Every structure is written in C-alpha cells, then in structure tokens.
C-alpha cells in the first residue's frame, strides 16, 4: 500500500515539476513523462501482487476534515483496475511528449500538470475506501480531465465540448453524492468497510443501485448518458483521449462494481436493467460510430459500444447471482473485467493511431484523408491491429472478452429458466449484431483512411509518426496480440482473485473459469493455425514471384482516362446501405442538390448524423430547464447590497429556525 502512495506522490511530483518549468515546454513534457513512468513502475508491483495473489492491504488514519477519514485499501478488484490505469497513462505520457512537441507556451506544462493530477485522481478513486475521500478523488479526476479537454481552448468547438463534459460529469457526481449520503445514513458510517453489513430494505437498495447506475453510468458512458463522450474525446489531445477512453471511463465501471459488492444480494431486475443498457449502448453506439465522418468521434462512439459490452457482462453477472447460477455470475463478471482490461489496450492503441494521423495530416475528418497506408505504413499496421481487436476477431484480445460474454450467455440459456433464457438469447443476438456492425465500421475507417488515394494535399504530404509515438503504439499492439493469444492461461490466473471480491463463491465451490478457457484455447490454436497457413501462402507467393519482374500500373478503369481521388468510396458512401437500413434510429440529415437538367453542372450531397439522445432528449430537456430557470433571473439583478441581504437573511432564518 505504501508503494501505491509513493507511486501517486511520484506522479504528482512529475506534474508539479512540469508546472514549475512551464516556460520550457520540452522540459515540462519530459519531466511529466518521467514521473509517469517511474510512478507507474513503482505502483505496478503492489497492483500486480494484489491481482495475482489476492492480497488485501489497507491504511486508515484520521485527517483534519470534519467528515470521514483517510482510508485507502488495495484488494484484487482495485488492483485489476490499477494495472491498466498505470500502464496506459505511462504509455500515453511517452506518446504525449512527442505529440505536444510542436506546441509552445506555458499551456503545455499546465496540461502536463493536469495529466498527472488525472492519473493521481484515478489511482485514488480505485483505492479509496471512504466516501468523502472517494468523492474528492472523483472530483479531482473529473476536473483535471475537464482542463485537459479544454487544452486547445482557442477553438469554440473545444470550449463547447469541455463545458458539455463538465455539466455531464457534475450531474453524475450529484447522483453519487445522493448515493453516498443514503448509504452513510443507513450504516451510520462513511467507511466502505462498514457498508457490507446488510440490513438494507430492498427498496432502499434498489434506489441506491439506480443512483449508482446514473452516477457511474454518466462517467462510463451508458446510453443515454453518453452524450459527453462524442464531444470530449475528439476535442482532447489524442493521448488524453486515449487515457480518458481507455481507463478513465472505466472508473465508472469500477464504482458500479464496488457498490454492487457492498449493496447486498441483487434482485434479478438489476441484471435485466444492466443488460438492457448494455444492449442499447452496444448496438446504438456502434451504429452511430458507423455514421460518423470524424475518426476520433467514431472512436468515441465505439467506446460507448464497448462500455455496452461490459455492461452486458455485468448484467449477466448480476443475473447469475440473483438466480443462484454461479457459473453464469462468474463468467459474466469475468467477461466484464476482462473487457475492461482489453478495451484499455486496444482503444488506447486506436486513439494513439488517430493521434498519429492527426499529427501527420492535420485532420481526423475521414473524407479528407486516404492512401495513408503508403505514407505511414507503421501507423497503418498498428491501427489495423487495433481495429481487428476492437471488432472482436480472433485471436486478438478483443475477441477473448466478447467470447467470455458469449460463453456466459450460453450458460445462462442452459439454466432452464424461461426469462433468463430469453434474456441471454437477446444478449447473444445483440452481441452478434454488434460484432458485425463493428467490422463494417472499422472496415470503413481503415479502408477510407489508409487505402485508396489521398483526397487532399495534406493527406498526400502526410509523414510517418516519429520514433517515440511509434514505439508506444507498437507496445500496445504487441500487448493486444500477447494478451489475446495468452488469454486462456491469463484469464484463470488474473481474474480469480478479483472475482472472489465480487461474487464470494459458495462454500466449497472454487471459482472455475475452465469452462471458458478450454474452448478459448481451441479457438486461439485454430486462429494461430489459420495465420500460419496465411504466412505460408505469402512465403509461397514470394517464392513463386522471386524470379520474375513485378510492375505496378493503374487499375483498368473501363477506358476512362481521368480518374481523380474523389472517385472513391467515401466514409458516407461506404456506410450508406447500413445507415439507410437503420434510418429510423440514426435519422441522417441529407442535403443534396438533385440533378434535374440533361447536362448537369454543379451538384452536391451532404449527410450528417446527429446524436439521437442529444437532439431528442438532452437538448430539449436543457432548453426546458433554462426556460423555467430564466424566470428566476430577476433575483440576479447585480445589486451587491441585495446579495448581502440574501446571505444575511438566510443565515438569520437558519439561526432562528435552529434555535426556535
């Protein structure tokens, strides 16, 4: 535990030093990155020990604040979230030194300070065992990431994104405060360790659960609370997007899991609610991702989709616990936890790849790119690996966690209960749809950006990512492959202790993940064999072509002599059949000048897909609130004396009320 505190201190110190030398951006970047690496290295030791060994380690001491105490602890569940936090923040920090390398001015140093603060906040969130400490850490994390999103604050869209995020995260925090107050009143303590005493009525427990879903779901990005993600992720610098999407939104999942482990035995409808959220987030998330024209926005929606998959795993876990089906419960939770880990790796990789594209071509608008595979082959390869992982294709790591969800759902179908069977069937069908759409979505992204011809001169002049950026991407790429291939062995070793925290096994029944890892071994071996065959074919081809001359020429274009780069599939046209299929949900806006004359001159076609929930739910709700609240504007008249009067009268009335 002391090592975790030391690691937090090192990271924070790095941030402080970066702030101190803010006048020299390069030095600030290096100092913060060194702090992040050193801190992570120190912190990984106890985190891994907790995950693999299942140790529990705590420090509790009183502090000067009127409420709560300083109580931190490291158990296997905290450790499992701590590992991706430490790894990804260190990797992204190294990437960021290069990514922000061209920026000048003190804002670089300031940004690094908030980056360190964000890391420290996330560490504190997963080790805090006191409600007040947890909320402090939560707010630190949220505010630090707000300042990180607002990095490029001269752009109006960035400011708007940052405000959207700030409002969303505070709505979530409001729900969390209500949750913690309820729990503390019930148990008479702010300490998490006193909260699993039981004795909550089912209505109160359900209220707490709903508050947790709302509060933590806002951070995690459950639909329809996801509205800040597609705004904030594109606005933030890419290494920050990678951290926010890869690990910060997972703290929401962690919070939900922690509360679930404290709140007592769950009724079945909690599971159904989580599965419904998971299905809607997953399917709608990937559909909206498919319709996007901006790479980072697409990735943000894909995060919503992956959070949906995690929520499905959680839902299956809760459902299994409620129906006393330990296999389903174990596998469901295992799937959720495993996907948390995997998503951190491949989404981090994809955001870093998107950052490399932005760095090279100056834009992430898919329709202004193209042909980048030839100009930046290493980035293209890394992005391709990330895309394969996010689509859930074997043998990369994304596949293994989605496979666990499938196995959990299949076990649920075997349970014999009709309702459970129907629910799990829906999960299987939903996951299949998500998988298919994800392949379409990332085929579109990879194909339009990296293949074909460059659509603009910026894309034509793109350069390969520098050594540092490439090294970090390569590291994550290798991690995706290794974790995927080694998963049959890794799952059992790394998830057993965290699962013991979540669903304490019934007496004498050890947690058994073999039911998942043995078919997984088969799939991984088959995939390896498949890749081996492909490699052999490639070698064979090279062998056969060895003695002959190979020339390259233009594709035969039916005799047409003047093809241009605009005669390619664009992101809209590639996605158009699917977008049209789901027109009812996506509501694409189309602005086209129809061709009416025999010899048409100028024509244009523009499509835009807004966010269903932002446009239909959140924006009208906020407009309504503003209308109501604007009637109270007469209170805010700007007369200082009256403001003092308000305060004085409030205090007087409170005093009289208290004494009366």
């Amino acid at each position, binding site marked *: 535990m002391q090592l975790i505190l030391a690691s937090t201190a090192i990271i924070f110190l790095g941030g402080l030093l970066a702030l101190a030398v803010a006048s020299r951006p390069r030095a600030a970047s290096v100092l913060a990155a060194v702090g992040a690496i050193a801190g992570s290295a120190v912190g990984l030791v106890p985190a891994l020990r907790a995950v693999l060994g299942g140790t529990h380690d705590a420090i509790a001491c009183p502090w000067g604040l009127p409420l709560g105490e300083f109580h931190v602890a490291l158990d296997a569940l905290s450790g499992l979230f701590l590992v991706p936090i430490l790894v990804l923040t260190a990797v992204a920090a190294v990437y960021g030194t290069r990514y922000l390398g061209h920026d000048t001015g003190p804002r670089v140093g300031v940004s690094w300070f908030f980056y360190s603060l964000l890391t420290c906040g996330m560490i504190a969130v997963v080790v805090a065992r006191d409600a007040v400490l947890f909320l402090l850490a939560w707010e630190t994390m949220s505010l630090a990431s707000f300042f990180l999103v607002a990095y490029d604050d001269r752009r109006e869209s960035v400011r708007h994104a940052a405000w959207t995020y700030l409002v969303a995260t505070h709505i979530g925090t409001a729900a969390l405060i209500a949750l913690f107050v309820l729990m503390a009143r019930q148990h008479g303590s702010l300490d998490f360790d006193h909260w699993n005493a039981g004795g909550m009525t089912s209505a109160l427990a359900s209220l707490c659960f709903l508050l947790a879903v709302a509060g933590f779901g806002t951070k995690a990005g459950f639909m329809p609370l996801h509205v800040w993600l597609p705004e904030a992720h594109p606005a933030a610098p890419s290494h920050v997007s990678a951290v926010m999407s890869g690990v910060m939104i997972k703290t929401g999942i962690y919070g939900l899991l922690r509360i679930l482990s404290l709140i007592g035995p769950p009724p079945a409808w909690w599971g159904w609610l989580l599965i419904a959220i998971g299905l809607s987030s997953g399917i709608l998330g990937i559909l909206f991702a498919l319709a996007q024209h901006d790479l980072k926005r697409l990735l943000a929606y894909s995060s919503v989709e992956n959070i949906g998959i995690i929520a499905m795993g959680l839902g299956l876990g809760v459902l299994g616990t409620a129906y006393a089906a330990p296999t389903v419960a174990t596998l469901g939770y295992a799937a959720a936890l495993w996907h948390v880990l995997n998503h951190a790796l491949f989404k981090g990789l994809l955001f870093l790849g998107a950052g490399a594209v932005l760095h090279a071509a100056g834009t992430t608008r898919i329709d202004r790119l193209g042909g980048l595979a030839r100009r930046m082959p290493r980035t293209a390869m890394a992005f391709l690996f990330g895309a394969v992982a996010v689509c859930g294709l074997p043998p990369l790591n994304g596949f293994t966690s989605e496979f666990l969800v499938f196995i959990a759902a299949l076990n649920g179908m075997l349970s014999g209960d009709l309702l459970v069977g129907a629910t799990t069937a829906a999960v299987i069908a939903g996951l299949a749809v998500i998988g298919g759409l994800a392949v379409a979505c990332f085929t579109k992204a990879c194909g339009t950006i990296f293949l074909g011809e460059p659509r603009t001169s910026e894309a034509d002049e793109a350069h390969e990512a520098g050594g540092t950026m490439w090294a970090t991407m390569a590291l994550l790429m290798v991690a995706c492959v290794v974790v995927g291939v080694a998963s049959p062995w890794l799952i059992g070793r790394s998830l057993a202790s965290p699962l013991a925290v979540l669903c304490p096994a019934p007496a004498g029944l050890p947690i058994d993940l073999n039911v998942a890892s043995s078919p997984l071994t088969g799939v991984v071996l088959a995939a390896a064999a498949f890749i081996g065959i492909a490699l052999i074919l490639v070698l064979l081809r090279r062998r056969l072509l060895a003695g002959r001359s190979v020339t390259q020429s233009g594709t035969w274009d039916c005799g047409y002599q003047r093809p241009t780069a605009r005669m390619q599939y664009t992101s809209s046209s590639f996605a158009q059949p699917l977008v049209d299929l789901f027109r009812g949900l996506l509501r694409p806006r189309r602005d086209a000048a129809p061709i009416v004359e025999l010899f048409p001159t100028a024509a244009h076609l523009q499509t835009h897909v807004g966010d269903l929930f932002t446009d239909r739910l959140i924006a009208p709700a906020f407009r309504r609130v503003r209308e109501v609240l604007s009637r109270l504007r007469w209170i*805010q*008249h700007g*007369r200082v*004396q009256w403001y*003092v*009067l308000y305060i004085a009268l409030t205090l*007087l009335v409170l*005093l009289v009320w208290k004494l009366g």
Partner: protein
Amino acid sequence: MDFWVNCLVVLIAMTNLRLLGSSRVVSCVHTVAFQGVLLGVLAIVGASGGLAAHGIVLAAVNIVLKGLVFPWLLMRALRETHLRREVEPAIGFGASMLLGVLLIGICLWIGSRLPLPVGVQASPLLVPAALFTLMVGLFMIVARRKALTQVVGYLSIENGITAFGLGFALKEALLVELGILLDAFMAVFVMGIIIFHISREFDHIDAGELSALKD
C-alpha cells in the same frame, strides 16, 4: 466589576444605534472607531481573574488599529475621493433606527436561546450586544449606498466578532483575535485603495451602480 462591564456593553449597543442614525460619513467612521476603543477597554475590564499578558496585547492592538489606523485610512480615502459627506441611505434614518430596535429584540431572544457554555460569560448582555453589532454591520452593508459606509459596516461586523470572542475566556482567543484583526487590517487597507480607484474610474462610489457591471 460587573457594573463596568455592563456599562461598556450598553455603550457598545448604543454606538450601534448612533451608526444607524448618523447622516454624515465622518461621524460613522468616528462611531465605529469609538466602538473599537470600547472593545479594547472591555478586554481589560472584563478580564476575569486579573490581567493576563495576552489581554493587554489584545486590548492594545484593538485600540491602536481600530481607534487610530482604520479611521485614518478611511478619512484619507474620504479626502482623496472628494465625495459628498452625506451617507445616502437606501433605508431612511428613522426606519433604520426602528429596525435597529427590532434587531435588538431578535438578538436578545437569540442570546437567551443560544446553547453557550455556562459560567464563562463576562456579562449576560455581551452575547446579544455582539450579535447586534454584527447585524448592524450587515445592515449597513445592505442599506447604505456608498462603498465607504459599507466598509464601516464591515468594521462593525468585525467588532461584533471581537465582542463575541471576548465573551469567552478561551485559551486560543489571542491567536484567533489577532488573526481576525490582521484580516480586517488588510481588508480595510485594500478597500480604501479600491474605493479610491472606483471613484476615479466612475466618478462616484455608489455601490448600487455596480449593477451596470452584471452580464
């Protein structure tokens, strides 16, 4: 002993009424300075069980700062801004006095209900008088238009807090009191400068006109 303490407390309460009723800025400044001196004397007279060193220090600092330094700072601000010497009340003087009497009633009631440690009060009237001083200060801030009279109100609040602290022979009283005094000193210093700048910028120090700055 108790007689003199009671006399001082009643005098403090009466200075408050004079603060409410006076129509000239200068007399407001003088009144609040007099109040500060009275508090200093109270610190000496009210010290139960002989004079301790910290009581004398507190009294001396109180008298010097509130009786000499603050009035001097405020009079200088008054002179440099060349403003008219009337108070410009938002609530008339008669109404202010009536409200003051009402406030005394409320304060006496609150003083009788406040759960205070028994047996440490120098005088049963001290807590109501302290509260009254505090509320009059707030009232001055709310009901007077000039920024300078608002500073006077702020000083009156500070006097109220000091009086409240004097009522209890607490061990840490000296540190707390000195800390508050230092705060008040800085605040008055800054306010004096700001008032000067406001007056130079806007040609008046009417705080009511600050509403023009709202969004």
